[in-house]
């Protein structure tokens, strides 16, 4: 079993298309345990019920945005150690700094390539093979 197959991933994005593309990219990278949520609130609920090792979340979402969700994940003792990668459509330095201050492990600008996604994940977990 590869490292990727052992990692439980939660995808959080309000756009159906983005979730599908991200899921597709993760499958290409060898991930098999993938859960999806449509906004931060739903993501936080899923994490509280069933912690995942890796969260990949969009920033711009209704209800609870990516930063609010990141805070929720970090403030829950059961989920605070999860790796958190934030995706953003706007390459905004202030947002990156805020995300870093709140404990994001990486920030990736959209549109990402599969190789950039791999690099972002491997920066946290090491080789996925």
């Amino acid at each position, binding site marked *: 079993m590869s490292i990727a197959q052992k990692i439980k991933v939660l995808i959080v994005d*309000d*756009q*159906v*298309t*983005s979730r*599908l*593309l991200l899921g*597709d*990219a993760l499958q*290409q990278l060898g991930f098999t345990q993938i859960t999806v949520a449509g906004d931060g609130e739903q993501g936080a609920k899923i994490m509280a019920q069933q912690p995942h090792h890796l969260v990949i979340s969009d920033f*711009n979402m*209704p209800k609870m945005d990516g930063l609010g969700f990141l805070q929720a994940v970090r403030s829950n003792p059961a989920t605070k150690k999860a790796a958190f990668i934030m995706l*953003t*459509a*706007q*390459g*905004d*330095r202030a947002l*990156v700094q805020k*995300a*870093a201050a709140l404990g*994001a*492990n*990486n*920030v*990736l*600008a*959209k*549109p*990402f*390539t*599969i190789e*950039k996604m791999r690099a*972002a994940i491997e*920066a*946290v977990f090491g080789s996925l093979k």
Partner: protein
Amino acid sequence: MTADVQHRRIHVIQGEYKVSDDPDVVLSTILGSCVAACMRDPVAGVGGMNHFLLPGSANGSGGEATRYGVHLMELLINGLLKKGARRERIEAKIIGGAKTIAGFSNVGEKNAEFAQQFLSDEGIRIVGSNTGGDVGRKLEYFPVSGRARQYPLSGAEMQKTVALETAPPRIIAPKPADTSIEFF
């Protein structure tokens, strides 16, 4: 062939998007096989337009081309939401996607199909569309009223547009170097 004098014209080029809540603004663009998605929230009084050409063809759901198109759709939607639009109220018009070069694979049609599929997957209402055909279009969109006007391109304008669209793809890359942080 031009907008009324009192309107302030903002041109949207390939790979760009513009959003405005100014009723005096008209967004304009020139489309060959490219497609422009025009979206607005009639209640919030804000609208915008993007302009994209999926480089090559949009085969498969996970390709780089698709990600690029999705990105431009998302930027436009995020831009509208920032100015007070609500996702469930957004309505869209899809314009463009002409078959500009005889014998070439029909990239225009694929671009239009992509836009329609995206909007239907996202549950965004399409209130008008004019796609396909053999002739490029000049498009004007009033972001607040949602009115769209289009004019067929003349022969010379067509040649210029096709030359621009068939130039090597200029994908506007994100700035990963600026936004990447690594702690490990």
